[in-house]
């Protein structure tokens, strides 16, 4: 803001402010007309102070969290001092501005929309199921699953019906174990452990203040919300099918739950998993997971969750369960940062690592080491028994 600009007529200033607001919005700040008016009002209410002062004032007004607080100075300078009026030139000039770029629509959405019709009608496994299988749904599902196995990836390898049921039952059992956290709010309850004085006194009034009828209140249990992250990368392929059943059991049985699968990208699969038709669900999942390739990017995927889903999904009753072997092709620092961020969104973080059940295995991959400090409960999960052994532990969380 050169002296000539400082003494500029208000019309020009307000235009510049609108332009500045757009500039900030383009760089990821949440700003609307309300903020615009606030700035204009604030700046025009008194003679313009020094540049430094204006910067601090606007920073206080506009930043919403630490990230924005740290980025503000660069953005401010880029706009007012380096006279970068267009975003294009800004991005070329200073890389910090594109730390939160406008991302293209996640890949999986295309997957979903492309694959749904296929999974719904055309695929052979549905026909198998509607065919002559008098034994009932279970066998129909099994055949369907086998069919799709032969056609598709081994992610949903042969599924033994006994094992399916065992995994689903176990998942439900685990969910029940973690089921409730006592809320700390008191609500009226018939057999509460505390007196509800407010209600009691109110009802005592017509009886001359004699509290004949006592009302009680107590805290209520509230269901936990479970979010499962399943690693479906190459290194996990032997466990994927089994875990998918586990996840399916959990998500179907537990209303407050969400499921994600990831390897290089994160895919929200709650809807697909909830599909009543087990075969179709597995097919959809397989198709979704198929589109990706390469290794695992744990940090990146959890980052996606933090950016896009966490605000909406997670609350103080959320338990996040990560099913992964911790072989990560991304940077461990990234993973650590994202886990730390995730920990702020969820109450507990549980990491189940199938390799931990192996003899001589020690979780010393860089990713696992980086993740350890943020994990509340770290356990093996390579067999049904090891999963069952989790139950008492999870009940304590």
């Amino acid at each position, binding site marked *: 803001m050169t002296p000539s600009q400082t003494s500029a007529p208000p019309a020009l200033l307000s235009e510049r402010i609108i332009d500045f607001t757009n500039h900030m919005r383009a760089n990821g700040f949440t700003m609307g007309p309300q903020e615009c008016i606030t700035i204009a009002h604030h700046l025009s209410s008194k003679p313009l102070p020094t540049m430094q002062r204006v910067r601090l004032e606007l920073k206080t007004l506009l930043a919403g969290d630490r990230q924005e*607080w740290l980025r503000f100075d660069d953005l401010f300078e880029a706009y007012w001092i380096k006279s970068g009026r267009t975003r294009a030139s800004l991005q070329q000039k200073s890389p910090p501005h594109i730390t939160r770029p406008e991302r293209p629509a996640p890949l999986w959405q295309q997957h979903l929309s492309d694959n749904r019709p296929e999974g719904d009608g055309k695929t052979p496994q549905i026909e198998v199921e509607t065919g002559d299988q008098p034994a009932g749904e279970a066998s129909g599902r099994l055949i369907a699953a086998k069919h799709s196995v032969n056609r598709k990836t081994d992610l949903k390898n042969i599924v033994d019906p006994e094992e399916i049921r065992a995994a689903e039952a176990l998942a439900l059992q685990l969910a029940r174990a973690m089921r409730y956290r006592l809320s700390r709010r008191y609500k009226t309850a018939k057999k509460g452990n505390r007196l509800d004085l407010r209600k009691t006194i109110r009802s005592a*009034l017509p009886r001359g203040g004699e509290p004949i009828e006592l009302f009680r209140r107590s805290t209520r249990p509230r269901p936990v919300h479970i979010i499962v992250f399943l690693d479906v990368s190459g290194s996990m392929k032997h466990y994927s099918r089994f875990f998918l059943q586990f996840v399916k059991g959990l998500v179907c049985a537990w209303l407050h739950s969400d499921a994600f699968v990831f390897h290089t990208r994160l895919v929200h699969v709650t809807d697909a998993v909830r599909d009543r038709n087990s075969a179709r669900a597995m097919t959809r999942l397989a198709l979704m997971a198929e589109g990706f390739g390469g290794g695992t990017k744990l940090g990146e995927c959890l980052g996606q969750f933090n950016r896009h889903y966490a605000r909406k999904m997670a609350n103080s009753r959320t338990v996040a369960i990560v099913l992964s072997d911790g072989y990560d092709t991304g940077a461990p620092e990234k993973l650590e940062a994202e886990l730390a961020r995730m920990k702020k969104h969820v109450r507990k973080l549980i990491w189940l690592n199938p390799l931990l059940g192996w003899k001589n295995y020690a979780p010393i991959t860089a990713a696992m080491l980086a993740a350890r400090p943020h994990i509340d409960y770290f356990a093996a999960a390579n067999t049904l028994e090891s999963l069952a052994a989790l139950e008492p532990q999870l009940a304590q969380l």
Partner: protein
Amino acid sequence: MSVINDIGPKLAAVGYIADDPLSVALQLTVDLARPLLLEGEAGVGKTETAKALAKVLDTRLIRLQCYEGLDATSTIYEWNYQKQLLAIRAREHDRLSSSAIEKQIFSEDFLLRRPLLEAISQEKSPVLLIDEIDRADEEFEAYLLELLSDFQVTIPELGTIEATSRPYVILTSNGTRELSDALRRRCLYSYVEFPDHQREHDIVRARLPDLEANLASEIVGFVQNLRKEDLEKKPGIAETLDWAAALVGMEVHSLLDDPDKVTSSMICLLKTESDLKSAPRELVSRLAGKAA
């Protein structure tokens, strides 16, 4: 202009040394009457800010410490049940109708004012400190939003109570939980950093005027360097002040004099076991040497 730059020196006068961003933020809080959200690591003086502001404005400080499960009865109002029962008893023989009694016992006399109601019914705008808002749950946050936008409270038995004066609201957060965007948007925001060498020195001098000058600068230099170490929990300003007081109490005149005493006094600065272990005598004397 004179009004604008006012608050920094005033804060200094009451013993609180604020850096530029913070004093600007406080100035805006006063000017615009909008809540201020302060974030930063534990121990950088967020809570002290509110106390200092109350002193500067010469007004009351009303503090609401947040915890999980905080609800309306402990933040806004509660009826004084014991008193109500007694009142009903005392008027038993007055043959008042029950509605008349009801009117009496649900009046202001029987109302226990909790911090939020207290804050909006003061003659002079108080400073309302909502400490560690991230510890309260989402439900309370939503409730708070309503109060912060309307500044009125509705009590079913009494009706709506309008604010007689708008409190200056300061919220602090340690970032253990993400706050909602709605709350962030409604607040001014400032991130409080650890103070730089000069500012921390000023703070130590302001708070402990009796401290020897050379010891003060040694202490500040030591702590500044200690924060650069890889620690679980970095010492805040409060820790620095504690430590300085402890050293005075232990009659240490220079950090280099007695490394053992200094090492044993590290419990004032480092509050976790692993941090204490990671600061052995050698590190302490190295840092002391650097600071001196």
